[in-house]
């Protein structure tokens, strides 16, 4: 198991950097439940914007 842990550590060093692209717009959650689930997972607050046309 120790050797496997070493393998894992060696691979960590070889891992490529993340290719995350910064969003150029606000990322909206698709539902209230999804928003709460994501907010809990990230420990961040939620902002709800309510709108109407016109």
């Amino acid at each position, binding site marked *: 198991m120790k*050797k496997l842990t070493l*393998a894992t550590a*060696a691979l960590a060093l070889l891992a490529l950097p993340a290719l995350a692209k910064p969003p150029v717009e606000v990322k*909206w959650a698709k539902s209230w439940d999804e928003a709460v689930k*994501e907010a809990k997972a990230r*420990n*961040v*607050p939620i902002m709800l914007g309510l709108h109407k*046309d016109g």
Partner: protein
Amino acid sequence: MDSSVYANKDFIKASKRWVCVYGSKDSGHGTEKVNGAEMCKLHPQLTCDDHMKVNGEVSGKFFTGTIKMPATVWCDSDGKEVGKQQGALSSKQLIEKMAEVEKQLGPGLGSDEYWMAQDRLAAGEKAMGEAKLRDALASFNEVVKMEKLPGSKAVVDRAKAGLERTNEMVQALVANADEIRSAGDLDRAKEKYKEILAQFRGTEIGKKAEKALAEMEQAEKDKVKKGNPPKR
């Protein structure tokens, strides 16, 4: 607010420290095609059904009676209201209010980091499903490296669980090759060690496979020298 505030670069920057939800019961603003799908013209990453659904989900939750639109609600990570405002806000006012709430609730994981982690976790699971264990380990390790970021616990825990399952699979591969070697099926054992080496060259596991292969080749040479060819 749709075009003036939500498109403001400072607001977009601040929004990354939040989860943002948009609700509207209206769809008269129309749609536009995005990658072949009909998306909301105002917020093309949503469909009008999405924001109409949100509107229904939160209806009566934070306001009763007639609401002066637009309205904004700020909640903690459990969805519990911590503040609300009826009527339009400028970008500056909105960002200031958001900063105030953030100060109360403390830091969490930014959306870029969170979605990068989701991407890597999915890639790790996919690689594991395809038995590309080295790729799986690399993907999960990228997420584990986020451990020191605030609010990263949930994604890091998932990555650690992924690493553990992948390591079990690696261990099973090695055990399987060792077992085949012990049973005397040397050609098949060689194939198995070569498969391991192909994925893990340069790591401890790869070195173990290399050592086993070298030992087997040496044993074959020794037998040939003694005029006793290896069993096939």
